């Protein structure tokens, strides 16, 4: 049995509002949860921690009635409950805000907040009451937006807060926030945390899931760690050292990560002392209206260039231009000195440029195809349908990447949608590696995946560059960019503000540039003329 720390004195309300004991859930071939205990107290933020595949999502879905439990008891405010669906759970006061915003972009903010429980009058919807009520709720969250505006016209962060507004309107006793911060920038996270704290003061029990340790430590009172479907333990946040938390999550020594850090550090020194590598790709004043102002960018062979900047700074937009996903309005791209035009991703692939989207689900994996099919897809598309890759070769490719990238899957025939996020990301990486690109553009390859997989992907990027592949690396985590990149290009407000060699840069240096770095005057004048 897992070692539970003794129940701490929870102050005003000692009785847990949620008490799950001995929860087990099995899927064909997998025991997703194995006798897990979990409890939540009113007015507390409780972080659920664990690697991908640890069982976090399954536990949440058990609590919200999406999955029925094979064994175990769920008590809500002392009473045993069995939900047969999320609607019942919500009616009982358990509200959930998922990682992907589940709202309707083509409706107004007010309609989204009140969706499904619109105030009624005379058999129709009382639009005026709806406006008023939603305005009140938004006010309660200090969200200064017009309830009548279309949801789509707001940033992802605002949409996230609207989703929370929608969730707490249901008089929630329990609010579940599944990766609410993964696409927010620093200021927006602060805004979200302010909202969370005010909900906490109202006595709401909040379940918080995030891969950002800083945020977990900042906001949560209590932690529960899961690993491989089993409970590792429940801890009070202020009593648990970070290093102990990470070890509890991945269940192994952290030497792998530290080792990587030192290896790269020494390699960086070599790199900076060596001559600059030959240029593989050169972009001259490429731009796209509404996406990014003219930017110059060069990437050397075997060089890792990091793109840093806040969300919406133009990181992804620039990467999509180079990957051929969106086409440029102006400017010129050269590969090995030869001018090229990219109008489709296919053309980029022909030039051995691969773009791995930040939006893994929508633009990356093909979830109903097998691991093998996903891995060979880009290679097969490049060959054309009439030149199939022999089945034996496909099996070899799949097997070698499953091993090389340590993809956790029952076999190559498993559907990708049954894999955890980190493993899906690795399958996507394998697809791109299979076409042997000269330039690999990785847009947030480690977002929303666990510590172990993150370290593996970082190591992979390092060894790919060592073997001469150029990498354009985008991440919201500056530490990660600093650890991997030889050179860092900083963007702000859809303009390039700096191009810095990564020798001795610290996170604070980088933050200063992101916040205050000046726009490259040369480019500015270029735009003006």
């Amino acid at each position, binding site marked *: 049995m897992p070692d539970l720390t003794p129940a701490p004195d929870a102050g005003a309300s000692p009785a847990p509002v949620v008490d799950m004991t001995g929860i087990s859930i099995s899927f064909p071939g997998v025991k997703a949860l194995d006798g897990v205990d979990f409890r939540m107290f009113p007015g507390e933020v409780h972080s659920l921690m664990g690697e991908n595949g640890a069982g976090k999502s399954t536990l949440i879905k058990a609590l919200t009635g999406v999955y029925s439990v094979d064994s175990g008891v769920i008590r809500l405010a002392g009473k045993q409950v069995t939900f047969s669906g999320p609607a019942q759970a919500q009616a009982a006061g358990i509200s959930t805000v998922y990682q992907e915003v589940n709202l309707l972009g083509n409706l107004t903010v007010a309609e989204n907040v009140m969706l499904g429980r619109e105030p009624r009058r005379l058999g129709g919807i009382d639009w005026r009451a709806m406006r008023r009520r939603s305005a009140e709720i938004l006010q309660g969250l200090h969200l200064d937006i017009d309830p009548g505006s279309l949801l789509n016209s707001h940033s992802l962060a605002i949409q996230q807060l609207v989703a929370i507004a929608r969730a707490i309107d249901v008089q929630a006793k329990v609010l579940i926030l599944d990766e609410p911060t993964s696409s927010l920038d620093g200021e927006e996270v602060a805004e979200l945390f302010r909202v969370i704290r005010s909900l906490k003061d109202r006595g709401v029990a909040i379940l918080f899931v995030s891969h950002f340790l800083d945020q977990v430590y900042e906001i949560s009172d209590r932690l529960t760690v899961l690993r491989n479907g089993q409970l590792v333990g429940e801890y009070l946040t202020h009593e648990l050292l970070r290093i102990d938390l990470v070890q509890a999550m991945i269940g192994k020594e952290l030497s792998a990560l530290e080792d990587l850090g030192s290896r790269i550090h020494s390699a960086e020194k070599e790199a900076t002392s060596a001559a600059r590598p030959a240029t593989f790709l050169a972009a001259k004043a490429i731009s796209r209206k509404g996406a990014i102002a003219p930017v110059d960018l060069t990437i050397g062979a075997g060089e890792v260039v990091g793109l840093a900047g806040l969300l919406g700074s133009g990181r992804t937009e620039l990467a999509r231009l180079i990957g051929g996903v969106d086409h440029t309005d102006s400017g010129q791209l050269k590969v090995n000195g030869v001018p090229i035009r990219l109008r489709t991703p296919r053309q980029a692939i022909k030039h051995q440029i691969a773009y791995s989207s930040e939006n893994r689900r929508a633009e*990356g994996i*093909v979830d109903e*195809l097998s691991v093998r099919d996903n891995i060979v897809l880009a290679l097969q598309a490049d060959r054309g349908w009439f030149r199939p890759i022999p089945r034996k070769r496909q099996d070899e490719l799949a097997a070698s990447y499953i091993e090389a990238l340590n993809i956790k899957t029952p076999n190559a025939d498993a559907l990708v949608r049954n894999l955890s996020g980190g493993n899906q990301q690795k399958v996507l990486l394998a697809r791109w590696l299979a076409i042997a690109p000269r330039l690999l553009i990785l847009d947030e390859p480690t977002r929303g995946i666990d510590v172990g997989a993150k370290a593996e992907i970082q190591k992979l990027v390092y060894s790919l560059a060592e073997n001469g592949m150029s990498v354009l690396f985008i991440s919201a985590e500056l530490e990660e960019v600093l650890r991997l990149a030889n050179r860092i290009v900083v963007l702000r407000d859809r303009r390039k503000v700096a191009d810095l060699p990564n020798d001795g840069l610290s996170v604070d240096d980088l933050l200063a540039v992101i916040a205050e770095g000046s726009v490259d005057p040369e480019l500015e004048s270029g735009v003006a003329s």
Partner: protein
Amino acid sequence: MKNAVGRAVAHRLFWPLVMLVVLLAINVVAVPGFLSITVNNEGHLFGSVIDILRNGAPTLMIAVGMTLVIATRGIDLSVGSLCAIAGAMACSIILGSPTPNAVGTVTVAVLVALALALVLGLWNGFLVSVLGIQPIIATLILMTAGRGIAMLITEGQILTVQSDPFKFLGSGFIVGIPVATIVAAVILALVALLTRRTALGLLIESVGINPEASRQAGVRARGLLFTVYALSAVLAAIAGLILTSNQTAADANNTGLFIELDAILAVVIGGTSLNGGRYSLTGTLVGALVIQTLVTTVYTVGIPPIATMVFKAAVVTAVCLLQSPTTAAALARWRTRSASRAASPRPGEAVVSR
């Protein structure tokens, strides 16, 4: 053993196959000699089962093309009209020829009809892939206009042809087996080989499941869409020629009427989702057989013609219900419950299912 039963029930072709067997059983009860196949004095196979295989052939051919179209998230409503156009084209050429009984004439007529269908299929592909019109609307255009085109070709007449080589297509036999059945089987086999031995099937499924991810992986959806709509049209034309040959007349208004619905139904019964993605040609075969057996059952059981459509609807509803994930989940719950009830008092006894 328990697991084998469980796996069989979970297989997506389980319920369609059960339905097929049940329909056949009903026929055997109604007509004891239903399954018997005899050889008549001309050496042709003869019997109700052979009738099902022959009369179901056109629906099967169209359903094979429809399967691929549906796998790309599309749909092709124009196949019925294409049947009429192909029949009208072939008949008008044969009638206009001084030698309607020559094999050469019929060959030319068939090839011209198929070529015309190919052009029209490419038109559908153009509307869907280049202009980006929703498939249901894009093919609705030809569905509506197609009967008009057929009418223009036949100049508003029902063209009756007396041509032995042409008649052979719909009612001939090769080594005792109906020509239509052979053609359908060959088409099924060729399309299966074409899509599964090349990467066509993989790329079609990929585009159907996630178009944007496929685009970023370098898949050219445009070429695939042209291919599937053109193939669908050509297969519809072959089916139309067989139907026309069977009736020895081209009827612009009635040849292939509503056959698009039967074909879509066959695809859906076969377990291919209308949302696109994974498809099963074997499933489509079973689906087409279920539909044709159903039609036969109506006659053997003696259901009054006015109730035929309602009966058909009831059977289709049953199949769809059995296949739906919701029903499957409910059945699974029911099985676990009854299994645990059976297991708890006497743990030693065999449990019916997993």
